[in-house]
């Protein structure tokens, strides 16, 4: 599944950024290009991102960047639910 196919069929994305690499970069680049669609994205990662990496994610339209932990799934779910428009949820 390509990044383009992914973003064409989903309303929200939780991206587990295991390590910097072409797969994550490609998806984020695609998200940046599709920013007008407003797909909310929560990035979860075990890495400690530096300021530059964090800002780059934000500018790519990422809603939040969370450190992976025991409560990450609940937090990501809440954030995405709170971000989605009612219209987006209903459609």
């Amino acid at each position, binding site marked *: 599944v390509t990044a383009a196919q992914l973003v064409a069929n989903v309303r929200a994305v939780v991206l587990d950024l295991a390590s910097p690499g072409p797969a994550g970069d490609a998806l984020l680049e695609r998200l940046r290009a599709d*920013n*007008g669609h*407003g797909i*909310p994205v929560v990035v979860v*990662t075990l890495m*400690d*991102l*530096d*300021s530059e*990496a*964090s*800002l780059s994610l*934000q*500018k790519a339209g990422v*809603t*939040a*960047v*969370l*450190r992976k*932990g025991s*409560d*990450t799934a*609940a*937090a990501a779910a*809440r*954030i*995405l*639910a*709170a*971000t*989605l*428009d*009612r219209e*987006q949820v209903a459609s």
Partner: protein
Amino acid sequence: LISPPEVRRAPPIEGDDLARLLLLRKTYEQLQPADDEAPVPEPVVWDSTILFTDLRGFTRLTERFAHDPAGLLRVLNAHLTRIIRSIAICGGVVEKFVGDGVMSTFGADGNQTDHIGRAMAAAIGLVGANEALNRRLAGDWGFRLDVGVGIASGPVVIGAVGSVHRSELGVLGDAVNVAARLVMHAGAGEVLMTGTVFRAVAGMLQSELTTQSSVRGRSGSLEIYRMALLGGRAELT
């Protein structure tokens, strides 16, 4: 919550004070008639998290709509609809509207041990929801709506403010004052929080997204952390 004139006090309620306090809120929402025999519920104190929102530049927007105040209300309500929904989804309660923003509580019913995390999720979510609104309508409007958030946590009292003849549900405490002050300094897409709030969510948030700052004008030292959700790095004003 301001009781309308015909609703002066809570209806007679069996059960503990909290239930009766919450029914004060329902009294407003459901417009139930008052009962003169109803006792005024005793206040309760809970550790809670307070979240304020505020629209940046709303005064300028008001000027823009000087000849169309109804249009201004439509724009404001489009924004508040998203804000209220984001807060409710995360388990918060909008206690009152403050100008163009809201004051909301998390954990003010004593049943949320994770109220700080919930408030933080709501803050991130409502900034995102507001961005979604901007993406959809800012082009038509010709302007953006930018929201700031202030969050503080601590013991607050929830009780009936006023007299037996006229009261409203009030949430009072230092955390309320601090959160209200923080939101005044929060820039577009920014969440300002106290050290207590930051430490509770630090394990979840990428710390690089959060910077420590300070707000002048409050007695004593106040640890302030700022999370800039839209990639901005404006200085505190």
